[in-house]
Each structure stands twice: as structure tokens, then as C-alpha cells.
């Protein structure tokens, strides 16, 4: 599927505040007072680029963070408050040259027209390194921030009664991605002609109304922003079950999944590939990345001790949807190799403490993988699609004008 050697795996890092452990902000390296400055984010993304990572994702949400899956928790002992992820990505784009920038966007309450041009613009300002991670929200408090509609209250994301309302939110997200993608294609690449003879700046036959009509919104188009450098920036989504697997299989370039061992990984990959076939996309490249929370130290006992210390500060053991890895870069490289061999094409690592585990990835794990011939030694492409081995796609509307 790409020029990437088969033995190579892809690596991304998921950035969220001071790290994924709720007590991470209390570590001396954490810089919690800098969280709302550009310099903090520039330092993290620059460090990730130093490690030749494929991309960073940036978490986001339309309400304060909460330890509860659905409601605000009123806690004051964890990081609360964040900056808009698309704007963080754009702010660091001119300061980096190679690494992909993949902010989270929430489909449930936002406008696909705005997000399409925002990610297209991120692609312009980064010269072809943009993507997005699409997310839904079923939180009633976030719906109340917009006041446009209520969302049905759910008991838990995996409770049978929630399937219908959650599936509905994912259906909306699928429509959202469809609109975003059509808008990216709504200008053909050579639409700008600057033809002095006829006085025309554009060939309007190469701009297209997208005329999308769905249950939740209708969008006419075209975009106000020309087709971005990559044509189609990367679309990705985190997926934990059949409904989101289907979204990944139908609409995404990358799915993030959370298997806890190789057997689960094999099974998840098989389910996504089956959905991909059912969606008629068998021939399209689709990455499946494993998500892992990582505590990385050169000495395994140090990693364990650090995790215990943070758990003690938090008052309870840290749990996650993803597998939590605690150990050395070499041990992690072993695990990644095993999971890669059963079909995961890459990994999105969630540093438990950004200030510690991100440099441990870039300065410990990456050299280890390089020694094993499993990771790039230099950036081999100028765009995020290029790093992921994805060709620049043809415009879906181009053929219609021939």
C-alpha cells in the first residue's frame, strides 16, 4: 500500500494537556502553568518531530474535562480547561516542517462547512501535513453549551439501550465527514486559471456545488477555500465497537483501536477489514493503529514506581480504554513488533506524562525501533499522506466535467 518498507511501523503521539495520567500535571517536568501558551505546545510538537514521528493528535472537547464518562465531575485536582485543538495545530505548523498535525474535531455540535475550510487551511499553513480526528459527544452538558438540541441521556457507551442514540450520533459523524470531504474536492486543482484574455480568475466549471442533503444538515457548497495541498487531508477516528468500526471502514484513513493483546488486535483488524469490504472500500488503503498508554523508563522498576507514585497522587489506580504499558523502550518495541505482526500498521502512543514519556518515545523507543529496522531514519515525504504511504487522491468531481 505504500513506499514504506513492510517492516516499518508508523508512530503517532496523542497530546492531551500534561499527559494522560490524571496526576501527570504534578510531575516536576509537567509545566502545568504553561498549558495555555503557544510555547508549551510548540515544545511538545517539536520534540515529536525530533523523533521523526508520523504525526501528533491533539485532544479537544466542547466542555471541561471530566473523569466521568458523561457528566461534569466538579473536581479541582486535575487539569481543567483547554485551547481549541485546530488552532493549537495551526499555531505550531509554521514552527515545524515534517510532522503531521491531527487535531480533534467534534462533529456533534459544529458546522462541517467551517471545519472543512479550517482543516483545508491547516493543510495550507503546514504545506500538506493536516488531518483531523473526528469525535462525537453524548454529554448533555455539552449539548447545553449549544442549546440547539438535547441528546438522549445514555447509561454507558456499551449499554444495550445506548446503541440507538450513539449509532445516531455516529451516523451524523459519517455525514459530517462526507460533507467535509466533498467540500475539499469542491474545487478542482486547476480551477484557478487567471486568464487575462477573458478576464476570468477561475474556471467556474471546475468549482462544484456538493448538494449534500442529510438528516441533520444540508450543505450546498462549494467551499470558500480551494482544494488543500494534500487534496484530501487525513481523516481518523478512535473506535471501540461495531458502530465506530463502520465509520472508520467507510470514511477514514486511519482508525485508532484499543486491543489489549495480539489476539484482540487480530480480531479487531479482521472486523474492520470486513466492514471495509462491506463498504466497497477493499482496495482503499486504511491504516489501523493501536492505541497504548505508555510509562517509559530505561529501568522497568522505575516505570512501575512512577506509575504507582502517580496513582497514589491521584488517589486511585489509573484505568484506560487502551492497554497501559509500563516498561522499557526495548520491551515496548517488542510489544509493538508483536502487534504489528498481526495486522496493526502503526501505533498512537498516549504519553502518561507528556514531559517525560514523549522524550522517552523520541529518544528511547525510536532509536530502538530504528536499530531493529522497524522505523524511518529520516522523513521520507513532505506531506502527511506521503508519510502514511497514501497517494494524493483524484478529485471525485473532476471526471464529471470531462
Amino acid at each position, binding site marked *: 500500500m505504500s513506499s514504506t518498507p513492510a517492516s516499518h511501523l508508523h508512530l503517532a503521539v496523542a497530546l492531551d494537556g500534561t499527559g494522560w495520567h490524571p496526576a501527570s500535571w504534578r510531575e516536576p517536568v509537567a509545566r502545568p502553568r504553561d498549558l495555555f501558551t503557544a510555547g508549551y505546545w510548540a515544545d511538545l510538537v517539536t520534540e515529536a518531530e525530533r523523533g521523526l514521528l508520523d504525526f501528533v493528535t491533539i485532544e479537544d472537547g466542547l*466542555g471541561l474535562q471530566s473523569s466521568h464518562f458523561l457528566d*461534569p465531575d466538579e473536581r479541582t485536582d486535575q487539569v481543567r480547561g483547554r485551547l481549541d485543538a485546530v488552532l493549537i495545530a495551526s499555531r505550531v505548523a*509554521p514552527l515545524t516542517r515534517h510532522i503531521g498535525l491531527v487535531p480533534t474535531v467534534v462533529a456533534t455540535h459544529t458546522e462541517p462547512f467551517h471545519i472543512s475550510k479550517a482543516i483545508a*487551511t491547516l493543510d495550507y499553513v503546514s504545506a500538506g501535513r493536516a488531518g483531523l480526528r473526528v469525535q462525537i459527544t453524548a454529554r448533555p452538558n455539552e449539548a*447545553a453549551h449549544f442549546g*440547539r438540541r438535547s441528546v438522549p441521556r445514555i447509561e454507558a457507551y456499551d449499554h444495550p439501550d445506548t446503541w440507538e442514540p450513539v449509532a445516531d450520533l455516529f451516523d451524523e459523524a459519517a455525514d459530517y465527514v462526507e460533507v467535509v470531504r466533498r467540500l475539499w474536492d469542491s474545487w478542482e486543482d486547476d480551477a484557478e486559471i487567471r486568464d487575462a484574455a477573458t478576464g476570468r480568475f477561475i474556471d467556474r466549471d471546475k468549482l462544484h456545488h456538493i448538494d449534500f442533503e442529510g438528516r441533520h444538515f444540508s*450543505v450546498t457548497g462549494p467551499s470558500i*477555500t480551494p482544494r488543500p495541498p494534500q487534496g484530501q487531508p487525513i481523516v481518523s477516528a478512535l473506535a471501540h465497537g461495531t458502530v465506530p468500526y463502520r465509520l472508520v471502514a467507510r470514511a477514514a484513513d486511519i482508525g485508532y483501536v484499543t486491543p489489549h493483546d495480539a489476539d484482540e488486535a487480530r480480531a479487531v483488524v479482521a472486523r474492520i477489514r470486513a466492514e471495509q469490504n462491506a463498504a466497497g472500500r477493499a482496495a482503499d488503503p486504511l491504516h489501523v493503529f493501536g492505541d497504548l498508554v505508555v510509562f517509559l523508563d530505561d529501568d522497568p522498576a522505575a516505570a512501575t514506581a512512577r506509575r504507582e507514585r502517580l496513582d497514589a497522587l491521584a488517589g486511585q489506580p489509573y484505568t484506560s480504554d487502551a492497554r497501559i504499558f509500563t516498561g522499557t523502550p526495548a520491551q515496548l518495541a517488542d510489544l509493538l513488533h508483536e502487534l504489528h505482526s498481526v495486522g496493526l500498521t502503526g501505533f498512537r502512543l498516549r504519553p502518561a506524562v507528556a514531559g517525560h514519556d514523549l522524550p522517552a518515545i523520541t529518544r528511547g523507543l525510536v532509536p530502538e525501533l530504528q536499530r531493529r529496522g522497524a522505523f524511518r531514519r529520516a522523513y521520507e515525504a513532505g506531506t502527511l499522506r506521503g508519510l502514511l504511504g497514501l497517494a494524493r487522491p483524484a478529485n471525485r468531481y473532476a471526471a464529471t466535467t470531462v
Partner: protein
Amino acid sequence: MTKPLKQIHLAAHFPGVNNTTVWSDPKAGSHIEFSSFVHFAQTAERAKFDFLFLAEGLRLREQGGKIYDLDVVGRPDTFTVLAALAAVTEHLGLTGTINSTFNEPYEVARQFASLDHLSGGRSAWNVVTSWDAFTGENFRRGGFLPQEERYSRAKEFLATANELFDSWHGDEILADQETGTFLRHAKAGAFVHTGQHFDIHGQFNVPRSPQGRPVIFQAGDSEEGREFAASEADAIFSRHATLEAGQAFYTDVKNRLAKYGRRQDQLLILPAASFALADTDAEAEELAKLVRRRQVSGATALKHLEFVWNRDLSSYDPDGPLPDIDPDVSDHHISQGRAQVRMYRDPLATAREWRELAEANNWSIRDLVINTGNRQNFVGSPATIAKTINDHVQADASDGFILVPHITPTGLDDFADKVVPLLQEQGVFRTDYEGPTLRHHLGLAHPDEASEKRAAS
């Protein structure tokens, strides 16, 4: 006793998607590549300008049911490009035009608060309204808003956004690693807003930004727009750049401030202004004429005539006489997504007047459109333009100007190199930035200080 010299405020409007922008010039570069924005912004910052200004339109213009193809088309997302420009500039203010009809307060407030954090306090918001169903076809809401409600929604939108900006006071984040207290209290960012257009509550999730709130611009010229500006805005992006019209507008709007308990220096009047700059006045006059001809090609002249005639005039010769048929005065308008067409309130009278003008001067369609259209506001040598700008400001026709060059991205270069030094020599324009935030550049108080003063008085 002489009146102290006013300091001039200058801003740079990135060339727009209209026929002011000459894309056919050999020097004209890309309107979408980031490098053009970088060049333009860095030129403005080199010249110590107050801010960069970006306009916005959320649907491509159409005429006769087809996408309008004669002007520059296509622009970036406002927030996203401003955030990127924050990385390549240090002081320049970053003003974005954001529509209050096709957005929601929670999202816009978090974008502006984020931009303000990420730029170290340089964000500004030009609040605009629209109601047209044509633009609404790109959004969830559609074009439901009755025209008479657009300012009521805009006012409530801004009031709601201000409540969100003010929901954090700036002292909530303790981040005390020893005690383990991150937030001073659990209700940081709490808000409730109940109104005609918005009924929302919860917690805002972006802490107080360096400027507290973005600087607020208003651009409308109607009676409602002027009142909105007088009550809410920090600055007006106006269209009255001539001396007399500027003075009339300036006096009108500044006199409205008192009833809102505001001082005259709390609202800046900044008209948009185009210019033709050359080494001598005579050369500048020639350049101005050349640019006007480039701005109005034969094809563009016919399209502009269609704004008045409201008919397809493509069969007419732009170098020939005006149409002898009368304008179509039905409700359906040939042009969509454009404010300009509403200027012609009596098309039959305008058509009559233009025919007479054309006959008297022996003008073709193109000549007429060139001669009745906007002339550059400032034409002359560096000395002439510097004097004109200063005279306007000292005579209270404005507090400065938002310059609109006609070439992307180099159209500001000569102004920066040749006019700005003259203004600096005269002591009416800064030679360096005196503070880090846009409020510093504009001489505006931080909202916290402003409210303390109001409470104390």
C-alpha cells in the same frame, strides 16, 4: 494653545475577493498560499502597524445563477490562518471577521479566547451579521433569520460571548503541584444565558485570555449598526475615508458614546482606504488610472452594470454604449452573496443618470463603470499621502486607516518603506511597539480596568 497631535493607527487589510484586488498584474501572487499571508503580515509588522485585518464571506458569490469568476475567488479559514500568523509575528494584532448568524457563541468564544492565548493577546473580532438564505444553505441553521433580527441576534451573540469570556476571571488556575489543587474552585467558567436567540448554560472551557476579551470591531453603517458600535465596539471598520464624509461619520458616532457612559477615546474610527503610491504625484495619478482600468475589465464592467440593470447583459459590448432597455426592478436579484448591490436603491433613476453621464462624456460601458466606481482614497507621492493621512486624522475624519492594497502580497511594501517613515518623522506614528497586546497598540484599557473604572465612577 494648540491641540496635541493625535497618534495615527494603521492596519493592513489582506486584499479581498473583489475587483479592488488586481490579480492580472504581473506582480500579483497567490491569494491562498500561506507564504503570501506571511509576507503581508510581516510587512505590516515591520512597519509597526496596529493589526492585520481579514474579511470573510461564507458563500462564493453568484451572478445569474453561476459562480462569479472575474474576481479573486477563494480564501482561508479566518481563525486557522490567524493562529498560524501568530507564529510568524510578535506584535501585530490579528483581526478576524466572524459572522454572528452562522456560528454559535460557545464555539466562537473558545476560538477567540484560544487565539488570544496563542498570540499572547493580539486577537480582535470584527462582528458581522447576515441573514441571507443563500449563505445559510451552507449551514445547519439554514437562512432562517429575518433581516430585522440580524442586529438583535448579533447583539445577543456578542453579549453571550462576553459572558463566556468573563466566566473566568484569571485567578482560577493555581496548578499547585505540592497541594494538588489545579483549579481554585469547581465552578470556574460557569455561565447561564437565557435570551431570545440563545438559551445556554454550563461551563466555558477556556481560561481567561491575556486581553480578557478580543478587541471588538463593528463594520455596519446603518443606524442600528452605528448604535451597536457606540454601545459595544472598541473600533469601527468604516467606509467613510473622504475628509467630509469621514468627519460627519466620526462626529455622528462619537456623539453617540456619551449615552452609553463611554468616553470618545474608547471607540476608534478606522475607515478602509485604498491608495496609489508612486515617486511623484504625477506618476501616482497615472498609476491610479492604470489600476482603475485593470480593476474594471470589459467583462467586469458588464457584470457591474448588471448590479443596476438586474439583467443578463452579456450580449452587450463593454466598449459600446449603455443598454437602452430599463433595469428589471423585480424582487429577484441577479447577484447573490454581495452587499454592494443594495446600494442602488432606485435602479431606474441610476440607469437614467448613468446614460446621461455616458452621453455627455462620450463614455463606453467600461468608461462609465471606471469613472463612477470608487477612486483610490489616497493618490500621490509618499509625502503627499503621508500628509493627507495625517491631515484626515488631525481633522477628526478618522483615528487612522485600514489600508487595502490592490496587489497580493507585496501591495503594502512601498507604503511600509516610504510613507511610514515620514509619519514617524512627524511624530504621529509609533517607531516601535510599546506593549505586547493589541489593546496596547490601540490605547484601549483591559476590560477588567475598564469595568473597575465604571464601577468606581
